[in-house]
């Protein structure tokens, strides 16, 4: 099987724009969770979120004009704009330019979203409901469609290889990267731009997750304390917006052009819970088998893993179930690994989560520092492994495993290895 490495990365989150801005934020134990101020939250039990901060480029904030023309912005829900921004960063970082037919044909895009253009869809529904169907924008459909991130990235860069999009709720980003790696392994492309994008923090999105009783509602006055995986006081997840995109490349292709290599994707596992539409199976069997499948594909044992970037959403049920599955799979080695949840800093980016967390895992490997689990002040009973509470921790990291679990009982795990 052909080997696949990571040669470019890009990110947008509530901590800001760019890999450096985000990593610096994590290393400073900063939180991107704030009060929602751009729409009325009076009737919503959850009033906070990890929204992308708009502002000057030089401050690491999001300035849409850096990525799309005002004309194009009208054709895109925010999730597409964030996805494009992350993809442009990643492509630029990789130095890859598809300037010949053969190169273009061998470069594909696979960027998904959990929910897609919810804000656009709710606005369109209001227009139609008001009896103004003829006033609906001709851009309504293309502005909302999930695969339009992949579409725009391919159009902008001339990438004419496989063009695909994953939709598996909160496992989307991880599935996208795993599936894209396989497309390269199977020799259907040499380069794939892969990841996830999300912008579901809008009245309909927040109301929907509130109705499902999934969100934190007890920290509306202290937003930065709301996302607290494994902590006794956790009471639900915090929504986050943004996008994470990587450039994956066949190893020899990357070496030949002298690309910098951040790491190798060696394992990818998938499983289904077959249990419940929103709740994880209590025995953690889905997550367990998913991690096991990723290790099998990597040809590795649990002892080979140094760091786990957990799904860890800060929900009362999920965090401990995941930890239980990790302990069962890793045995005594669970006490040697570090495991943290970066959702504590940027919230849950749903369909983008797996992609930004894969990037954080790769950065841990490249910097020798694991990012912290913020707000983990009083771990729940049994949460006795190193969960990197409060502040980052230096340690040698050669191999990382990143977990993503989604509504519908869909699980994905990725394993990355330092490139030597």
């Amino acid at each position, binding site marked *: 099987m052909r080997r696949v490495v990571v040669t470019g990365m890009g990110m947008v989150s509530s901590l800001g724009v760019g890999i450096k801005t985000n990593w610096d934020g994590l290393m400073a134990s900063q939180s991107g969770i704030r009060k929602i101020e751009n729409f009325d939250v009076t009737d919503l039990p959850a009033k906070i979120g990890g929204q992308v901060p708009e502002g000057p480029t030089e401050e690491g904030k999001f300035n849409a004009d850096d990525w799309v*023309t005002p*004309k194009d912005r*009208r054709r895109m829900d925010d999730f597409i704009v964030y996805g494009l921004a992350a993809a442009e960063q990643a492509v630029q970082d990789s130095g890859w330019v598809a300037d010949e037919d053969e190169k273009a044909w061998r470069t594909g895009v696979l960027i998904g979203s959990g929910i897609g253009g919810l804000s656009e869809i709710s606005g369109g529904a209001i227009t139609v409901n008001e009896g103004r169907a*003829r006033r609906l*924008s*001709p*851009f309504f459909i293309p502005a909302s469609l999930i695969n339009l991130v992949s579409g725009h990235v391919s159009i902008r860069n001339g990438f004419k290889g496989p063009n695909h999009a994953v939709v598996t709720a909160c496992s989307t980003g991880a599935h996208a990267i795993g599936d894209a790696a396989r497309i390269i392994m199977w020799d259907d492309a040499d380069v794939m731009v892969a990841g996830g994008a999300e912008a579901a923090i809008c009245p309909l999105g927040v109301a929907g997750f509130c109705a499902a009783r999934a969100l934190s509602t007890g920290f509306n006055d202290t937003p930065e304390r709301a996302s607290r995986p494994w902590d006794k006081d956790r009471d639900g997840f915090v929504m986050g917006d943004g996008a994470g995109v990587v450039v994956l490349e066949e190893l020899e292709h990357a070496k030949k052009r002298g690309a910098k290599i951040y790491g190798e994707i060696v394992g990818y596992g998938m499983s289904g819970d077959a249990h419940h539409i929103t709740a994880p199976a209590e025995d953690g069997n889905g997550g367990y088998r998913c991690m096991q499948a990723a290790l099998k594909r990597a040809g590795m044992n649990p002892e080979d893993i140094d760091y786990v970037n957990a799904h860890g959403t800060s929900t009362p049920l999920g965090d401990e179930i995941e930890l239980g599955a990790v302990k069962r799979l890793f045995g005594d080695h669970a006490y040697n690994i570090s495991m943290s949840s970066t959702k504590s800093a940027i919230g849950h980016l749903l369909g983008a989560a797996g992609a930004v967390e894969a990037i954080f895992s790769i950065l841990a490997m490249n910097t020798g520092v694991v990012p912290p689990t913020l707000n983990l002040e009083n771990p729940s009973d049994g949460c006795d492994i190193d969960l990197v509470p409060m502040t980052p921790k230096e340690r040698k990291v050669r191999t990382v495993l990143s977990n993503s679990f989604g509504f519908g009982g869909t699980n994905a795990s990725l394993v990355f290895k330092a490139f030597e």
Partner: protein
Amino acid sequence: MSDVADRVKKIVIEHLGVDEDKVVENANFIEDLGADSLDTVELVMAFEEEFGCEIPDDAAENISTIKNAIDFIESQQG
């Protein structure tokens, strides 16, 4: 220049993100101003909104330049 012409040009500049000096009366939306088929649909909707008129699909098909738009709208208002 008529009031209608000013308002039409303003809409075109805003929607297509083009420079003001390109928006001359004979400018063709697609050939000269870089619009695609969806842009032209949106432009027609914007004209309808701005001038409170209805532009039927068969009339819209014949509106391909700034001048076409101005003429049609003025004919409706007259």
